[in-house]
């Protein structure tokens, strides 16, 4: 008994050390940094000014609101696309096709996000592939700028997060008994009713966990908004980067980091409350 406990401690030690040294400690350091600042005389003092700045300077909180709003929209669109896709994979496709479809979904993730985003940029840019074909087919006379718009940015974000919605949805749908759907048909339910009263309620935990992952990934994304979003696309993560790198203001940057953590947790908590779910159920 004693021996096994020792073995457990030995195997746990690297994980604990990892968590403590690489996650807990830096966060404590960041938290302390976010509470430091300079007073008018340039002396370093403890202050809440970094947090106050967020609320008093409209640029900052407006950027956050914008980022959160776009993250919610991205999550919703991803859900709408992922739902039928996962249903097809889990219920309609034959087992052998199922595997192939999952591989197809996974395939783009074998290259880095940067490469995928550049792929989209080549397709969408004014002198890009899509415009070339539109012109050849005579659909447009002049090339249209499709890149550097909010729509392009959301497209990129949805594409990047598709997989993280489909996988949990497929796994919950697998556990849905087909006979429930058949029974509903026998009793005369329409397609819409079946989706609303049987499939979606059954998939709730998968939807919630997928939505949380997609929302957090989108909110914390830096690359896609920056490269595809164009001139109006200030993302909150970019603002954190700017504070650290361009303004040398690490105190303000860490305060923004903690605000991002707190506010995104709050949004997820609200989401769980509104859909009457508990985090524990979703995780299981």
């Amino acid at each position, binding site marked *: 008994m004693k021996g096994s406990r020792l073995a457990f401690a030995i195997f746990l030690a690297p994980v604990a050390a990892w968590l403590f040294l690489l996650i807990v400690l830096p966060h404590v350091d960041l938290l302390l940094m976010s509470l430091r600042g300079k007073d008018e005389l340039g002396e370093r003092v403890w202050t809440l000014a970094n947090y106050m700045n967020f609320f008093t*300077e409209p*640029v*900052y909180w*407006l*950027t956050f609101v*914008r980022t959160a709003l776009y993250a919610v929209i991205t999550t919703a669109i991803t859900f709408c696309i992922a739902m039928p896709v996962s249903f097809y994979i889990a219920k309609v496709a034959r087992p052998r096709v199922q595997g192939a479809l999952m591989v197809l979904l996974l395939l783009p993730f074998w290259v880095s996000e940067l490469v995928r985003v550049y792929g989209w940029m080549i397709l969408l*840019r*004014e*002198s890009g592939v899509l415009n070339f074909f539109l012109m050849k087919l005579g659909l447009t006379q002049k090339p249209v*700028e499709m890149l*550097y718009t909010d729509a392009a940015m959301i497209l990129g974000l949805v594409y990047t997060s598709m997989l993280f919605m489909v996988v949990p949805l497929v796994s919950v749908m697998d556990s849905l008994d087909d006979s429930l759907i058949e029974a509903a048909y026998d009793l005369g339910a329409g397609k819409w009713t079946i989706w609303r009263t049987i499939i979606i309620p059954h998939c709730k935990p998968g939807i919630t966990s997928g939505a949380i992952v997609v929302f957090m990934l989108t909110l914390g994304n830096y690359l896609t908004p*920056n*490269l595809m979003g*164009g*001139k*109006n*696309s*200030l993302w909150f993560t970019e*603002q954190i980067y*700017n*504070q*650290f*790198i*361009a*303004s*040398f*203001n690490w105190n303000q940057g860490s305060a923004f980091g903690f605000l991002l953590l707190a506010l995104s947790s709050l949004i997820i908590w609200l989401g769980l409350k509104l859909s009457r779910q508990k985090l524990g159920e979703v995780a299981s």
Partner: protein
Amino acid sequence: MKKIVVLAALLTFALAAMAQAETLKLLTWKGYAPEELVNKFQKETGITVEVTYSNNEEMIAKLRATRGAGFDLAQPSQDRITAVQEEFKVYQPIDFAKIDAAQVIPSMLEAVKKNTQVAGKSYAVPFCWGTDGLIVNGEKAPGADSYKALIDEKYKGRVSYRMKRPILVAMGFALGYNPFDLYKDKKAYKAMLDKVSETLIKAKPVVQNYWANGDSLLESMRSGEVFVAMAWDNGGWKLHAENKAIDFVAPKEGALGWIDTFAIPAKAENTAAAYKWINFMLRPENAGYFTTQEKTGTASAGAGKFVAPEVQADFDRGFDQAAIDNIKWYPPVPAGLEEMEGQVLDKIKAAK
């Protein structure tokens, strides 16, 4: 038994690490350590150069995070050294006895020594220089010769610049201020920044995109998506080699001149190798090779005859004597300015 195996494995790793050849960890800009020169240096001295690419802001952040450790040599611009050194102490003073001063253009060496002085000691040696100006597609935007072209309605959706401090300074000059004179007076500088940000926000529809990556800007110019851009001179000359219509133009308000330097981080492990690399890179034939490759001027005296004639022609075409005299050299940036500018940059990017 297992313990012995683990120990043996650890020992081999340790030995392997020790047996590795001498290295120089260089933190620099893309293109500043051409592969051929890196190989030549290794043949000459046996030192392997490990290159990390970066830019001014990230260089400072990296060194600040480690308090000047992890690299043996960095290459920040001369105007970004004093404020950083005063506040974060990330560099060590240069020992000029170890620099072959005869290889360096004297006026440039003196200027950099003066501009990077903190508490009586200088922290940098000049390496190369260049300017920020306009890259213009002469067919699509003939006659664009002022920073005002960047806010000109005529070029709606065909303009690009970097949302970093050079555009603020350039627009300051275009609006009739002298930003470098205002460096000392934060209030007046702030007033100028407000005016500049108002102008740039109003002119936002003119912009196609704020470029962040030099190569992607060149691609946009090449494909004709962008007519006028604010960018570095060497980018313009690279494009000119492919398409005669595109060229670098020194704006009439004056191109903004920068000097990139060698500076040794405070906790550098191999300073001997750092000095060797500095002297190696400033040797005329090596500096000439660098200039030919990158189309970036060098601080090396006597490199002129090693520069390819077509590159020399680029310089002559871009800068006549009047344009050279009109170059506005960046003076050292005082502490606190960047914070102010950061906020303005965010505001412009967030505005609709």
